[in-house]
């Protein structure tokens, strides 16, 4: 009777857009004041202690950058005040767009810096090594999140990244060990992830199984299957599960840059493939025919269908492609890190990758930033352990999870998935 473009989302509950600035700004000020009292004026920093940040990796003798030494107390106070100031600006000026994002970024950086200065007071902290740990931890998360981007941008929710990691890690280790070739292992890892992706695609697209549920079940399936095969094959015969890894490749010239050199240009080939994939997925999604169609299929499949795009085929293709990428993330866990396969070795990283995807608002670059953030939190919590901070290890390890909750609950604002994400496409 009437043709109107139905609004794509009618939020069920009204979001108090106005008050949000108050809440967020207030929370920022509170946290800033806390930082001031705990980090800046606390006992750890008060007697003129200095914090030393080493900027060289042990073992990279070629580069030498002087250590960064800061007076801990004054630095922490200054950084905390920056936090408070940004909080005040947020509440008072209600910035939007770029300025708001910039403010949030500076806030986070200042807060984390204040914390690090406090933690490192009277000790030294190897900052480059923290960054390196961040990159190592973030690589599988990035691959998992890119898989999520491919699947969810085309309208299939993928909660099975965890399972794809497991199968990828298992296949990579098994085939690399049997064949003796890391490349065979890498391909096998990708195919393993792709296989689980294919299952996801079939059950989601053909049998219309609710996709979040499906992902959870596939995770169980993958955990059970790899656990079973591990016990029956690898445990009885360690030759099926050798430690093997791609060697690090130094990019000539770049790898001797201070700080970033060893972190970004001294990793193994899977890392470089990951970097390439970030670019490929981003460019592919926003600048190519395939990307335009993928996004169309995820936003409004019927519309895509009416212009002749084969919606379901597109979804199959992208979900399987995504599976290949997640499988590579799994391969990283074994033959990328020089580690043998172990039951449940993904240890929840697939879920963190999913969180990175959502945190990054379903965009490849956003997901990369989120993955780096999680990686950084992990790297820092490991590095802080020997510094004898009064914060128990368990609480340091909680930070990435709490950060995610805060992010989805407030800081990032309402994140919106592609409109048709999780909705199977059927026609009459």
């Amino acid at each position: 009777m009437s043709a109107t473009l139905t609004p794509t989302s009618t939020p069920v509950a009204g979001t108090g857009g106005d008050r949000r600035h108050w809440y967020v700004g207030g929370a920022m000020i509170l946290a800033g004041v806390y930082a001031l009292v705990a980090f800046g004026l606390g006992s750890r920093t008060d007697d003129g202690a200095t914090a030393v940040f080493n900027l060289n990796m042990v073992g990279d003798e070629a580069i030498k950058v002087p250590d960064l030494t800061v007076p801990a107390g004054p630095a922490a106070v200054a950084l905390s005040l920056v936090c408070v100031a940004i909080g005040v600006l947020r509440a008072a000026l209600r910035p939007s767009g770029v300025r708001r994002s910039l403010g949030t970024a500076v806030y986070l950086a200042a807060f984390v810096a204040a914390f690090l200065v406090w933690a490192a007071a009277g000790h030294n902290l190897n900052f480059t090594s923290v960054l390196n740990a961040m990159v190592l931890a973030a690589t599988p998360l990035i691959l998992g999140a890119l898989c999520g981007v491919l699947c969810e941008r085309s309208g299939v929710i993928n909660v099975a990244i965890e399972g794809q990691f497991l199968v990828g890690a298992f296949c990579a280790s098994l085939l690399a060990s049997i064949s003796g070739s890391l490349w065979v292992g890498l391909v096998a890892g990708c195919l393993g992830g792709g296989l689980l992706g294919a299952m996801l695609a079939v059950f989601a697209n053909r049998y219309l199984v609710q996709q979040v549920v499906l992902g959870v079940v596939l995770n169980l399936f993958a955990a059970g299957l790899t656990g079973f095969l591990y016990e029956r094959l690898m445990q009885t015969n360690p030759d099926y599960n050798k430690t093997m890894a791609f060697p690090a490749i130094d990019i000539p010239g770049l790898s001797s840059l201070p700080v970033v050199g060893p972190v970004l240009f001294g990793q193994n080939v899977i890392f470089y493939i990951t970097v390439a994939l970030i670019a490929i997925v981003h460019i592919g999604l926003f600048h190519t025919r395939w990307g335009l169609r993928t996004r169309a299929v995820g936003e409004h499949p019927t519309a895509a269908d009416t212009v002749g795009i084969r919606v379901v085929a597109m979804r199959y293709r992208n979900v399987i492609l995504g599976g290949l990428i997640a499988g590579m993330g799994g391969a990283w866990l074994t033959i990328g890190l020089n580690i043998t396969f172990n039951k449940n070795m993904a240890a929840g990283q697939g879920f963190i990758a999913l969180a990175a995807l959502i945190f990054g608002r379903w965009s490849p670059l956003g997901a990369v930033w989120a993955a780096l953030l999680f990686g950084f939190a992990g790297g820092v919590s490991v590095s802080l352990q020997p510094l004898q901070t009064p914060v128990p290890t368990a609480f340091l390890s909680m930070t990435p999870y709490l950060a995610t909750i805060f992010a989805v609950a407030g800081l990032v604002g309402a994140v919106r998935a592609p409109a048709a994400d999780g909705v199977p496409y059927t026609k009459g």
Partner: protein
Amino acid sequence: PEEDSGSGTAASDFSACMVTDLGGIDDRSFNASSWEGMQAAAKSTGAKVNYVVSTSENDYVPNITRLISQKCDLIVSVGGLMAEATSQAAKSNPDQKFAIVDSSSVPPNVYGMEFNTAQSSFLAGYLAAAMSKTGKVATFGGLPIPPVTIFMDGFYEGVQYYNEQKDKDVKVLGWDPAKPKSGSMANSFNDQAAGKRIAGNFIQQGADIIFPVAGGTGLGAAAAAQESGGKVSAIWVDTDGCVSAAQYCDVFLTSVMKSVAKAVQTTVETAAKGQQLSGSYLGTLENGGTGLAPFHQFEDKVPAELKQELEQIKQDIISGKIKIKSANQPKSS
């Protein structure tokens, strides 16, 4: 699974069964060692041995019950977490024989096996301090629990002893018995990636010898050491690393052995012969229940003088001349 022991000396109808802890049969740690001991005993006595795996703590009680109903003559449970389940089962089945690794005995029909690994870790600490070029050594644990921190305590005390004797200042990263809350823990016994991360961080802090006390997690530390290209070495724990994780043998300075296999083997053999098992077993440097493994590829790198010093310290510990303070040592029974 059922392991037929065809080549036994005397075909016996004695059966010994083992319940693993959550690490599974190939944790390269006490589960694996216990199973090794079971198999050795099977060989020597012709006893039948098998094991069941626990995948969650909910499995402990039913696994033990099931083995009781399978009429196992001796049930070996591995790990102190099973102590309660074992002693309850023992109380309600007073005729059934039990043995448990890493726990003392409570009911009379449970034979406990404990190990004072602080003693051997003390030696390892001394060795590490002497071998370190950077003056920093490191250790981390799987969980902050006595069976783990006892190693770390001993290691720490060994380093301090070296510092006293030689007037040096070798630092221990990752553990200070005075501040147990901020010790480095991987929170897992089978997360190799975590082990690698933690070890990598120690290396970046300047440590060149790492002593992981975290079962399979430690493999990640060994991998990190291997990647350093000879600059960093590791000390393995529980078993001789050159045997249980041979691929990393080139980085293992030595291993702090906890002779679980030996103890289990002896226990099963004793029981199979029909002899009484009573009280409990405490492995020490003196009885060989714990000690340092051979240096293997480091044999030539460890100075002879240092080897002598270690031998002397060992004697001093046995004689009680050196007192180890760690509160985590088993109360000797």
